């Protein structure tokens, strides 16, 4: 009985909604500060020593916008399945990048929520933080039912479309 209760709480769309807002805010914030300072972000990417030279600037220009779009989509509740999937992929890539450089023992700035070079060296906590965000994104992908979302607001009466995306999430 207790187990069931916990299980249903874990699957709760309300929990998913909290995760969605939290992740959305974080992605939006991370994206905006990087758009403001592409040069600083490019230096962070360079310091990871993972990308070829010609890709560094392009990633510094484009990645923040993917983060902003993902953040916006999660906050507004539009296409949350797509954005939580993209968020999961991004967080997975970041986790790999962090792991590789932790293993290499490089003393580099994370470049996660600050573009300053002296913002703090990466350590295991950064990886754990990334992985917990990844967990949230996966939760949103599976259990989000578009509560308090623009999608639901726009399509309020269009049961068919809601059904198409969320009906089979029910037990």
């Amino acid at each position, binding site marked *: 009985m207790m187990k069931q209760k916990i299980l249903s709480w874990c*699957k709760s769309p309300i929990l998913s909604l909290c995760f969605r807002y939290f992740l959305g805010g974080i992605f939006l914030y991370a994206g905006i500060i990087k*758009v403001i300072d*592409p*040069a600083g972000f*490019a*230096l962070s990417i*360079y*310091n990871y020593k993972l990308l070829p*030279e*010609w890709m*560094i*600037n*392009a990633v*510094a*220009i*484009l990645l*923040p*916008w*993917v983060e*902003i*779009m*993902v953040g916006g*989509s999660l906050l507004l509740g539009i*296409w949350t*399945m*797509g*954005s*939580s*999937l*993209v968020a999961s*992929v991004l967080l997975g890539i970041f986790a790999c990048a962090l792991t590789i450089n932790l293993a290499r*023992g490089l*003393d*580099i*700035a994370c470049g996660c929520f600050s573009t300053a*070079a*002296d*913002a*703090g*060296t990466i350590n295991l906590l950064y990886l754990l933080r990334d992985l917990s965000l990844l967990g949230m994104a996966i939760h949103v*992908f*599976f259990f989000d039912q578009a509560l308090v979302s623009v999608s639901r607001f726009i399509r309020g009466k269009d049961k068919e479309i809601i059904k198409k*995306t969320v009906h*089979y*999430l029910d*037990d």
Partner: protein
Amino acid sequence: MLKSGKFAVTAKLGIRQGIVLVVLSLMIGGSFNALRPSKFPWVGSWSPSSVTADLLEELQEISLEEACSLRQKNEAIFLDARDPGSFDEGHFPGALNIPFGEVEGWVESVRDMANTGMKIISYCDGMDCLLGAELARALQKKGVPSVKVLVNGWSRWRTAGCPIEKEEG
């Protein structure tokens, strides 16, 4: 949980939405960069030497000979920008270990030392190590009058046979 078979539908929908989101972001990102007044170049030069040169642009480099002689006259304080592990294995005599994230806590004491007339010199290890230059820049930004950089300090210092110091234990 998803019923089996439906997962494929959800995943497909998710992937489709995801692709559209990413493509849209790339388009917005590209246009934004084209329109912003300070365009950021799509391809930059990121070889270690050019990055070091860029970083050193506003900073003063110091030669090994000068650093070594300042050390002998006891007129310089060295700041080691490497991680504590490398620092413990060996460092310049009397050097302070100031890794990346810890600049803030050191600003005041370094400023005081600089004001007593000591030369402040930062270093790390390797030609493509930017930590020393970044440390110097960060300190200067926070009001330390002059911090010089000894490029590739640790390796050069050792091979030149200048004195070194190790942590006990």
